[in-house]
């Protein structure tokens, strides 16, 4: 083991030297040897990534070496364990960015890109393939996988999600790695400047991955737990992902469904009722509009059993929890079903303002779009309407 650690130390030193003026002494052969050492480090990473005790030893040696190097070279960039996986790439970019890199070395790097047409396998290494694959991924990644159930996620996001899942699964396949996997996700969250939503989409893609063995399901569970632990992120994910996708996730993962309901409830609580115009308004742009909210519930509703029934139960429970009032008096608003409305209204308004006509509207909308409401719901509305009419006439 000590030999391995020693090699690791030397390789990291080599990487550090490649970013200094000392590189002027290098030639094509030196570069080739350096790439071999870098490849050795990548191998170490693959071999010991999932082994907690060896990993700890590697990490601690990395820490020591980094400290020493930071003393020796000003501006030394620390090498972390996950950096080891990209050692060759780091060497390459380091050399390219180092102004001291001599001309023949740059030439030998360019040859690795496949500059010469006849340079065969040995010379072309993988840089040519790498840039080809990368361009190909960019071209194909933008296509949206268009099946209704998945809509909204690009092929790229799907695949990156699968890669993440695969890595998490590999890490979790060995005991004692839970913290390391959590750390990985935390780092991802911190480092992505594209914002938390893109990480959310990535995790959503991982959760939807159909290539599910039992190990993968465990990894998916882990991702969901992690997401739950980051409340703000979860809420933002529920808001940013398209409704079809959230519905699909709700169907597949109970934990997500509860979180999604919670998020909807939370969004609804921000809405305010504008009595003079008879409209629900958002107090600020950062909150979700009434229309978006109804749209989301509509998708949950149209997903069919059992999610539809469960959503209905949830809404009824909400309504009951808030005093089981019937809501009336909202002019010309296109609501799709009233229990949801009831909870919205009760969350935000004084019930005394409300008066008469809501079931009419609901019924009209229901007749226009029969798919939205089940026939029993329509019947329910009818009976409610007749009892109300009776009630007001007796007044």
């Amino acid at each position, binding site marked *: 083991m000590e030999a391995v650690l020693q090699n690791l130390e030397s390789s990291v030193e080599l990487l550090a030297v490649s970013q200094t003026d000392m590189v002027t002494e290098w030639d094509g052969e030196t570069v080739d040897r350096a790439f071999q050492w870098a490849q050795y480090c990548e191998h170490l990473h693959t071999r010991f990534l999932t082994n907690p005790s060896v990993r700890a030893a590697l990490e601690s040696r990395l820490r020591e070496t980094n400290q020493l190097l930071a003393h020796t070279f000003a501006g030394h960039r620390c090498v972390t364990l996950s950096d080891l996986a*990209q050692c060759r*790439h780091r060497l390459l970019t380091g050399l390219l*960015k180092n102004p001291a890199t001599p001309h023949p070395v740059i030439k030998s790097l360019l040859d690795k890109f496949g*500059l010469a047409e006849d340079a065969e396998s040995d010379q072309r290494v993988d840089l040519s393939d790498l840039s080809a694959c990368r361009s190909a*991924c960019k071209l194909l990644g933008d296509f949206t996988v268009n099946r209704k159930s998945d809509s909204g996620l690009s092929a790229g996001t799907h695949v990156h999600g699968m890669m993440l899942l695969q890595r998490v699964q590999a890490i979790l396949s060995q005991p004692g790695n839970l913290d390391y996997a959590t750390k990985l996700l935390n780092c991802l969250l911190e480092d992505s400047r594209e914002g938390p939503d893109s990480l959310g989409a990535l995790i959503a893609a991982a959760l939807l991955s159909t290539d599910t063995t039992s190990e993968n399901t465990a990894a998916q569970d882990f991702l969901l737990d992690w997401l739950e632990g980051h409340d703000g992120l979860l809420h933002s994910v529920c808001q940013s992902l398209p409704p079809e996708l959230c519905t699909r996730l709700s169907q597949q993962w109970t934990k997500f469904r509860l979180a999604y309901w919670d998020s909807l409830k939370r969004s609804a609580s921000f809405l305010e009722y504008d009595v003079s115009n008879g409209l629900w308004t958002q107090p600020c742009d950062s909150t979700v509009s009434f229309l978006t909210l109804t749209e989301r519930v509509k998708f949950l509703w149209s997903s069919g059993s059992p999610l539809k029934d469960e959503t209905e139960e949830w809404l009824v429970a909400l309504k009951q929890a808030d005093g089981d009032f019937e809501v009336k008096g909202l002019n010309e608003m296109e609501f799709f079903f009233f229990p949801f409305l009831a909870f919205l209204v009760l969350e935000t308004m004084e019930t005394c303002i409300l008066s008469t006509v809501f079931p009419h509207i609901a019924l009209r909308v229901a007749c226009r779009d029969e798919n939205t409401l089940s026939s029993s719901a329509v019947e329910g509305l009818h009976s409610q309407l007749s009892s109300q009419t009776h009630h007001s006439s007796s007044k």
Partner: protein
Amino acid sequence: MWAAVLKTANTFSFSINKEIEGSFTVEVLICWTCHHSNCRNYKQKELGIKKWKGNFQLKKQKEEIALSPLPGEGSSDKCFSVSPCLRFKDMASLSELQMRFWMDKAVQWGQATSPSTQQDISEHMQSLETFLQQLVHTLQTMSSTTEAMKSFPFVGQFLGRLCWNPYVTADGASRRLLLQCMWLLYSAEPQNVVEHRANVWIRDLLCHLTSEDEGSMVHALEKHAGFPPQQYYSGSLKKMVALLTTEVNINHIASAASLERCRFDSIHSLSVACIPLVTCPEVAPLIGALLKHYNLCGCSHLSEDFIKAVTKAWLSKKLVMEDEAVIALWCCSLSSLEQAVLLLLEHILSDPKVMHNLETVVTDSLLPKASALHCHIFLIVNDVFRNALISIEENLALRGLLQVFTSCFLQIRAAQRPQERLPLRSFFPHVPHNLLTPLLTAPADVPKHVWLEHLSWIGTLLEKFLSERNQEEDSRRGHRAVFETWFLLVQCGHWIDVAAKLLVSVGSEQSKPLLFLLTFYHHPTNRGHQNTQHNTVARQAWSDLRSLFLTHTLSPEQLSAVNELLCSLSANLVLCLLLNFAIFSQASTSRMTDVIQKVLTDAGVRRRAMCMLCTMHQRLKGDSALDARLTMLEDRLRTA
């Protein structure tokens, strides 16, 4: 257009492959490149342009020029090699207008995110490559980056934009040209700020070609999840292709079942995006799925450039697809089918060695399989063969190809389920139906003892048909009908082989229909009204050969008669009879070699004999006794 060969250290010659006219200036560009790894002067240096005026008239092709020795270092220095580079003057100078056009294009294309942009790039790809090639040549003539930047101030921005365009960098050829341009702009010893900046910029571009932008999700994922980029991208690409392939497949199944418009509406854009990826092995399954989707779904279009690119890549063996995908390609593009047939023809006509494994070559071409599945493919393939046969009717290799192709086709068709088979009549619409069954039946399916009867039957049918056609008033229609029947006979050449073999053992009376078939096979037209003469020659040759192989004494008169016939118009017929006698007669091997040696004296005839033997050898594989005789015959011919 140019080919230049270094003849000695100081001269080289060059030739022009294209016919050109008029006078023009040729620029000779000489690059001395150092290949020696230990050499300190590692550089590619340009030693200037030698202007040389040539007055080229049409088809004037060769010139030789002298080079002045390498200044200072001496031309004998072994660590330098010379790569002369020639070009037209007006081809070399890039006009400002051109540069501006391409710069505008690069700006307009951006990072090629929309399908319409990708479509536009794919339409310009070929000319962009030509332009980049010219740019490479032009940059080679520049003494320094400073000079290059003065002449083309936008060159850096232009190259940079293209490097950021994945549609351009996905294509191997363009990527290499971009790298060449960058390398030519890289200064070994930067002399000023411009050159320093250019170097830094080139290094940054190289970084960009292999790395994600920092701060992107993918960059973070790669970094923290610990994926080596190579592994990450090739893994991602494979997964992405699998995902999209499933998507394309699911959708055609769904749409075929419900007859609805298919839901994956991006088929066309996807095909456009795949154009630069046709040679990328990871993408092959997706390309196959797109082609199959097109045939099954019919509601979507594939880009024409995509079809062209796939055809080109497949023909040059840079793309490997499953059989179904190739057949789907032919179904949606007539020209790709024609190209495949022409390639097969070219392969067989240009290389005599192919005859040794003709059947494998034909089967591997997938054309028989495609023909059995799709009648229209069979008809088109045979149309190409028909045209080839009209221009080179005597060619033995072509006849061999037709025969093997047809038998492969029949075998594959026989293996199909009966309900999938179309009636044979639709494959052979132009020939009389009564001839179809006897000719298309394989000899193996007819008991040996009735072969003679079977052939007599065919002969009678054919004679009757020909005499009817001759009496027809519309002679053109008659000719056409005769041609089609003969074409069928060539396709079913296995019966001609049987007839030739039987002629070795039958008596005079039985030989009549067999000789008739053989004569018609070799001389279908009554060109020069020589039918009667051909018949006489065939009969004469047959009886001469009979006595040469079957009697005890070797008569010199008969030998010289056969020798003469082999140089006549009926050479192929006589040769065919001769070889059949040599192999199938009971004559001793010494007699056989004796006759062969005395008769086959002309080199041209021997070559044809080799070709015929080759096909016979293929046919008779497995028969050890005959095999030995054939091998001996071949050796004799080779050494003679």
